């Protein structure tokens, strides 16, 4: 103990010097904000770099969770983007006669979907009467048409999938403008048949098919699918056309119910006219 004091005493000048300099430094940093903040700025740079390195190493151990989160976020953002694109697409449609579609879109999630019940498939959506859904409304997906609303409860609705032989959709070949009818034959959930297309019409594989807008069910020009094959037998009046559907029903998650405000008027007018014939 005594030795320590003796040692300290013999170096008292130097120790005093250091102590006084430290005191001076303390006074400087407390008194001058520039020096003080400069010091902390430097030390922040130092600690900042250290924490950056530490975080990089930690990130490496958390890669799995990060990947999962990113995938989920990607999927959600993609869906949002598709919804926005679809909205933009639908709102930009212009009928040649200047007839603008008067529609509203209700987004819904597919909570039940069947694709392999022979010929009668239905889709259940999580939107119902309280969301404005009514029977007969058309349902679109991000990549193509999905179906027509069959029945509605307060919070849910059941939709005729187009993979349902009871449903016939009036379609138009985009190239030539010819009208045909889309009807599912119960075989393949990716392929549907295009009926009633006369033999003289030139159809090629790869032609796109869209809805015609007749019957005021689907908005005109909604994408249906792409022609997969064209065959014709000798005695047939019509071509046998396979259409690969745009919508992938095995992965259907999100659907958009279209509310066409012109439909009731059109329906009543057409029914009245046809009945009187």
């Amino acid at each position, binding site marked *: 103990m005594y030795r320590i004091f003796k040692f300290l005493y013999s170096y008292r000048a130097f120790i005093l010097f250091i102590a006084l300099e430290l*005191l*001076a430094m303390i*006074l*400087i940093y407390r*008194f001058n904000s520039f020096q003080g903040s400069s010091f902390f700025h430097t030390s922040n740079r130092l600690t900042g770099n250290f924490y950056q390195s530490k975080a990089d190493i930690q990130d490496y151990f958390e890669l799995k969770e990060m990947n999962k989160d990113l995938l989920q976020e990607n999927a959600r953002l993609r869906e949002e983007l598709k919804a926005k694109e679809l909205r933009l697409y639908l709102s930009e449609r212009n009928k040649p006669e200047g007839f603008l579609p008067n529609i509203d879109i209700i987004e819904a999630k597919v909570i039940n979907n069947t694709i392999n019940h022979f010929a009668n498939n239905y889709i259940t959506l999580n939107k119902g009467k309280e969301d404005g859904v009514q029977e007969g409304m058309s349902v679109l997906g991000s990549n193509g048409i999905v179906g027509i609303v069959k029945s509605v409860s307060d919070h849910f609705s059941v939709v005729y999938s187009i993979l349902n032989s009871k449903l016939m959709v009036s379609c138009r070949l985009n190239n030539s403008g010819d009208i045909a009818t889309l009807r599912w034959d119960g075989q393949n959930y990716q392929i549907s048949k295009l009926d009633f297309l006369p033999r003289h019409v030139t159809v090629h594989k790869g032609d796109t098919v869209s809805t015609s807008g007749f019957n005021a069910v689907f908005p005109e020009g909604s994408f249906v699918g792409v022609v997969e094959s064209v065959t014709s037998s000798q005695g047939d009046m019509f071509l046998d056309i396979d259409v690969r559907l745009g919508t992938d029903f095995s992965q259907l998650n999100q659907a958009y119910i279209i509310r066409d405000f012109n439909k009731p008027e059109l329906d009543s007018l057409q029914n009245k006219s046809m009945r009187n014939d």
Partner: protein
Amino acid sequence: MIKGPVLHIVIIISLLIFQVAIGQNLILFNSAFCFVYILGLLMLPVDLNDVPALLIGFFVGISMDLFYNTGGMHIAAAVFVMFIRRHWLNLVTPQGGYDMGVSPSLEIGGIIWFVGYALPLIVVHHAVLFFLESYGFNAFWFTLKKVLFSSIFTFVLSWIFLILFKKSSR
């Protein structure tokens, strides 16, 4: 005549007063500042013990800081100079060594010796002061210019002071 430590105290105090009253505003060419109070520290006896020397430097520094509003910068510079002065005096010992308790001024070795003794210490003092003030090497050349010009200016002023005092003590 006043002798011994009282003389030194008087010198230091009068230099401080001069510094604060006049020297503070005496700036040449926007880069030569004046800190003549350092002369008071330089003229302390050669064999002053370390601890009192450092403490004197500390108190002189505090007084300057109070007037200059610079926090602890003058303290740092003055204490540093006092610490170095001890060893520096050993280095620049003139032939024949120092007399007992002599005060390092023009009597020892004339102006040439005084230049060799005081100018480096003044430069060191100003360097510590100005670099602490700028804190960093951003304005390095400008700070260096300040250091050099201020050192020269301070030295010339202290030389003038010494000549004045020499005449009066004769």
